[in-house]
């Protein structure tokens, strides 16, 4: 059965606030993770802002959803990647990234995996679906 499990990649390329795309895209990820699919998420372009630690949407008057990223591992979405170049272009470093969960055994915090832009193409080539939210 293992080879029947479909690989589905999400790309997040828009800023987290200012439109609903990234928030509703997150809802899709959480639902699809409940199915028998191999889910991965790549944050690039303005999408990297979604992974910035310490977001506060109170003054925007919206609910905010960064806290949900903090429990992605609990939803069995642990393949979370972020494009280094996109981060650097926006003045972000690995230290700015939020925690996406903790290791079951060691309770160590887990952070998104920083990858190089040229790694993304080969990852995409392996996917059954790529969804852009």
């Amino acid at each position: 059965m293992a080879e029947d499990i479909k690989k589905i990649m999400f790309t997040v390329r828009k800023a987290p606030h200012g439109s609903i795309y990234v928030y509703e895209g997150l809802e899709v990820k959480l639902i699809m993770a409940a199915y028998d699919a191999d889910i991965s998420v790549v944050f690039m372009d303005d999408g990297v802002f979604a992974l910035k630690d310490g977001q506060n949407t109170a003054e925007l008057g919206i609910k905010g959803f960064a806290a949900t990223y903090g429990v992605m591992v609990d939803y069995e979405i642990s393949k979370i990647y972020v494009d280094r170049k996109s981060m650097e272009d926006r003045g972000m470093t690995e230290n700015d990234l939020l925690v996406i969960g903790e290791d079951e055994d060691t309770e160590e915090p887990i952070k998104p995996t920083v990858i190089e832009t040229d790694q993304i193409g080969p990852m995409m080539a392996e996917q059954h679906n790529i969804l852009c939210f």
Partner: protein
Amino acid sequence: MKLAVLVLEGPYNHEASDSAYNFIQAALEKGHEIRGIFFYHDGVYNVTKLMEPPQDDRHIANRWSELGAKGIDIVVCIAAAKRRGIVDDVLVPNVRISGLGQLTMMAIEADRLVTFGD
């Protein structure tokens, strides 16, 4: 080929809906199968019967309904719809409201999932 189509933008305001429709027509003419059409984000506005465009323009909701009448499964995401006031009562015929699980099944079962959005 078995295709599924995801539409993420509303009608008229963006071309995504027209492009999706034209893509589906072309695919059907080539003999491909459409596994399903899923509306998400503002895409849920595509299939409300409350729209009343000028008579000399295309009627986007009726166009989708006609595709549904051919037996293509057309699904509106319930979470996105509820947020935007789209309920069963305002849908054109041959379209249904259901959950994101339906999109998941389309993604898994189709050979290709093609997204139309910005």
